[in-house]
């Protein structure tokens, strides 16, 4: 931009959202936020999916009392806004003598929420496997657990992948909720920096950071969906 020109709308826009000096100053804290976001996200994805898978496998044994508990837990976690659960746990638990760090609360709640959705998706995959597959496997002498692990789950996982990917992305994005309880992830760093800088550039940096992280993942999810689309027909 030529210094001699009077400020145009375009230069005002650039100055508000893409100010170079602000970018320079706050890039390190945004990068720190990215690290925290990625850490929480990785922990949530691994623990949530494993827990969801475990719950679905347990549910396959159809022990009535256990299954009722699983269904109630899963339903509640699907019906409640995650932010509500986060606030209840974060503000409630210290008063009864259980102190969890904000990082731990965010991780715990998002893990439980992802586990609930993952359990439903895995369970749908298990029940979608034709009865004949169970019968064929059992007729050759395979036990219930062997049939579940070697015959049913490999097939169930295939139809599980696209919806699970989309759900995982959605819940991973909820790491931004950590800002409400002060977890120093991207959004938290961005809002803090914005109020210090008196300029919206850090918020834009935060938004761009999310795009850089998630657009490839969203595109990958879309690709997975078309790749596995034939299974649904």
């Amino acid at each position, binding site marked *: 931009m030529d210094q001699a020109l009077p400020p145009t709308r375009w230069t005002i826009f650039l100055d508000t*959202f893409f100010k170079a000096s602000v970018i320079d100053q706050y890039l390190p804290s945004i990068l720190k936020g990215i690290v925290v976001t990625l850490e929480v996200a990785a922990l949530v994805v691994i623990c949530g999916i494993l827990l969801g898978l475990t719950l679905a496998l347990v549910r396959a044994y159809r022990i009535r009392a256990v299954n009722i508990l699983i269904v109630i837990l899963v339903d509640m976690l699907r019906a*409640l806004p995650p932010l509500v659960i986060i*606030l*209840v746990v974060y503000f409630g638990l210290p008063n009864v003598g259980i102190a969890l760090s904000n990082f731990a609360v965010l991780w715990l709640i998002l893990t439980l929420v992802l586990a609930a959705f993952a359990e439903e998706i895995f369970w749908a995959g298990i029940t979608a496997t034709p009865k004949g597959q169970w019968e064929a496997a059992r007729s050759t002498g395979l036990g219930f657990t062997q049939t579940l692990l070697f015959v049913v789950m490999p097939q169930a996982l295939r139809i599980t992948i696209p919806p699970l990917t989309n759900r995982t992305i959605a819940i991973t994005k909820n790491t931004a909720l950590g800002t409400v309880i002060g977890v120093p992830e991207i959004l938290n760093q961005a809002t803090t920096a914005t109020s210090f800088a008196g*300029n919206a550039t850090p918020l834009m940096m935060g938004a761009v950071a999310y795009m850089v992280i*998630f657009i490839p993942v969203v595109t990958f999810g879309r690709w997975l969906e078309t790749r596995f689309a034939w299974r649904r027909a």
Partner: protein
Amino acid sequence: MDQLLDQFFNLSIMQQVFPLLVKGLWMTLKVCAIVIPVGAFAGLVVALCATSQSRLARILTVPYVDLFRAVPPLVLLIFIHSGLPFAGISLSPFQSVTLAFLLNNSAFYGEIYRAGLESIGAGQREAARSTGLTALQTNIYVVIPQAVRNVLPDLLSNTIEVVKLTSLASVVALPELLYSADMARSITFNASPLVLAAAFYLVLLWPVVRLLSRLERRVAA
């Protein structure tokens, strides 16, 4: 145990804050009443663009959808509420919330409708056009009804997510259910108002979640 009950299920506090939370619930429902129908309609338009004959329309919808699917709704909301004022655009909390969630939702509803539209074979379109229906009539009377039916569980599931999403409005101080509950918590130093709010959400959404499970099973069968 008493401590636990007192901290999370304090009935007298719940009774006190009940009217406040009901007020908050109304605000939540008000946001939903705008965001869900408008978002669902906008999503349909996005999906029709994404599957249209026009190359340009198809190409333009991809970044729109991907952008709003990639950015967490809370980030979008805070960007609109606290970022735009720096550019001289100040919106009220209610306006910020509806704008942010409409942008976010239209992208998500759009993806669902797109899958639905793509599930309808070309034969349906050809049959309708061969009887003299226009492209628009074909969409309205033949394609969209079938497409919607095919993705009904996904639409319902997304709608649940939208209702849950409105809780984020508390972050920009819109006095909806969660905001009211959190206000009450900070005054009473007790988590019971939050638990009561959770109960409100459960009453509102649990039946829908159950219905959804049943629908999903029927579609899978």
